[in-house]
Every structure is written in C-alpha cells, then in structure tokens.
C-alpha cells in the first residue's frame, strides 16, 4: 500500500478547515492568530505534496513553503506586536470586545 497524493491533500484540506473553524469559533485573539498559522500549515502541506507527486521532486513547491514561512514569520512579528499594543490599551484579549469602530 502506498500513500497517494489525494491522501495528503485531504489531510491538508481538513487541517485548513479546522483552521477556519478555529478562526470562526475562538474568542481569543491569540488563538485566532494561531488558527491562521494552522491554515498556513495546511496549505504548506499541499505545496510539498504537489511538488513531490506532480513534478517528480521538483523543488518549486518547497520554495513556496519557504516563502510562506517568511511571510508567516513577518506576520507573527507584526501581529503579536499589535496584540501586545491592543492588550496594553484595552486590557483584554477577547476578540468580541474589539469593536471600537462600532458606534
């Protein structure tokens, strides 16, 4: 028995969906952010899997993962800095309370 491309893709689809779910259901700002990382990871898996199966070990897919990681790192740095600033100002991490633009 070998593992097929579809297996990997289904797995990554599920991870992605779980990330979406986390994004929608979690009330915690940091957890929401973590969910985004989960989505990115799910996508990364598809890149590597495609690169392995469809292009016969081409490294392009791996490079995309590399770039995604760089972007994720930058995003994490900025996002966490924003979270820190938000918490300092509003003293809460609850995403539902961040509605200053309302009213």
């Amino acid at each position: 028995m070998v593992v097929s491309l579809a297996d990997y893709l289904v797995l990554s689809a599920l991870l992605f969906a779980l990330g979406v779910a986390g994004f929608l259901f979690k009330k915690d700002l940091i957890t929401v952010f973590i969910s985004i990382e989960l989505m990115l990871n799910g996508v990364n898996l598809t890149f590597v899997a495609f690169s392995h199966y469809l292009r016969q070990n081409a490294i392009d897919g791996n490079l995309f993962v590399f770039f995604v990681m760089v972007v994720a790192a930058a995003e994490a740095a900025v996002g966490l800095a924003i979270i820190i600033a938000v918490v300092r100002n509003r003293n809460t991490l609850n995403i539902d309370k961040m509605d200053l633009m309302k009213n």
Partner: protein
Amino acid sequence: MQLALFIIFGGLALAGAINLLVQKAPIHSALSLVLVMGALAVLFLLLGAEFIAFIQILVYAGAIMVLFVFVIMLLNAQPSEPSRSSRIARWLGPPVAGLLGIILAALVASRYHRVPANMGQPMFQVEAIGNALFHQYLLPFEVTSVLFLVGVAGAVMLASRPDEAAQNAPAGHLAETEAISRKKGAGA
C-alpha cells in the same frame, strides 16, 4: 511502512488541530499547534522534503511558535471570559467550516486520486533549493527579505511603549515588570 507513518503522523496532526480547537487556554492551543507542526515535519520528510521539514521545525516550531508562547506568557493569557458574541458566527460558522472542509476534501480526493505514486528517490535538495532561490526566485527572495525587514521594524515600533524610548531602560526589564504585574493582577 510509508502508510503506517502517514497514518500515525497524519492522525497526530489532525488530533493536534482538533485539540487546538477544543482547548480553552491559549497556551494549550499553541502547544497543540507545535504538535501539528512536528507531525507535518515528519510528513514533509515522507514527501522527500528534508530541508523544508527541518526548516519547519527550526523556523515554525522553534521561532515563530516560541514567539507565540512568549507573548502568551507575557500577557498571561487566560481562557477568555464569556462575552457578547457574534450571532452570525454562531449560525454561519459551523456550516461554513464544515462545508469548506468537505468540499475541499471531496474536490481534491476526486481529482487527484489517480496520480501515480512517486517512486523516484528524493534527491539532495539543499543545493537545488539554494540554486533556485538565488536564480529563478531571486526577486521574490529579495522582496520577502524587504518585507521581513519592514515587519521587524513595524513590530519594534508597535511593541515599544511611547515613553520607553525616553526612559531608555533595557527592554527586558520592562517585560519582566510587566509580566510580574500581570501575574499579580491575575492572582488578585
């Protein structure tokens, strides 16, 4: 063997992801994500992407998630208190997430189930990746490095307090005092 590893670590990744969703405290979610990342790194190894696998560990798990954990510690993030919540998210969320997963999975499963397994030996990748990075993908590489630089500068700007520069105190000190004060606040 391959299938066994795939099932074990794929299952581990899924379990981690679900645990991420279920856990209340942010720190547990973050650690679940680290678990997912570790499992994914093994899957990358299975897919012949050694370099990416260890970069995944080194950068994602070892740096980015450490940052998350750090912030969680710093802010002493507790399970979030109940609050006015979004009705739309409550009604729209489950079908959206569920449909997204089902449709995506069904889509890829139906389209790619016939792709032949790759029997080729994984080649030595680091050199190939370096070559591609500095030739074919030089521009994206440089652009992302600029993006990264901007991100770092932005993070420093955002996280530093306005009066911090005036005091010119070492950053670590403030972080420590802040953490202490939060701990106190949580205890009280």
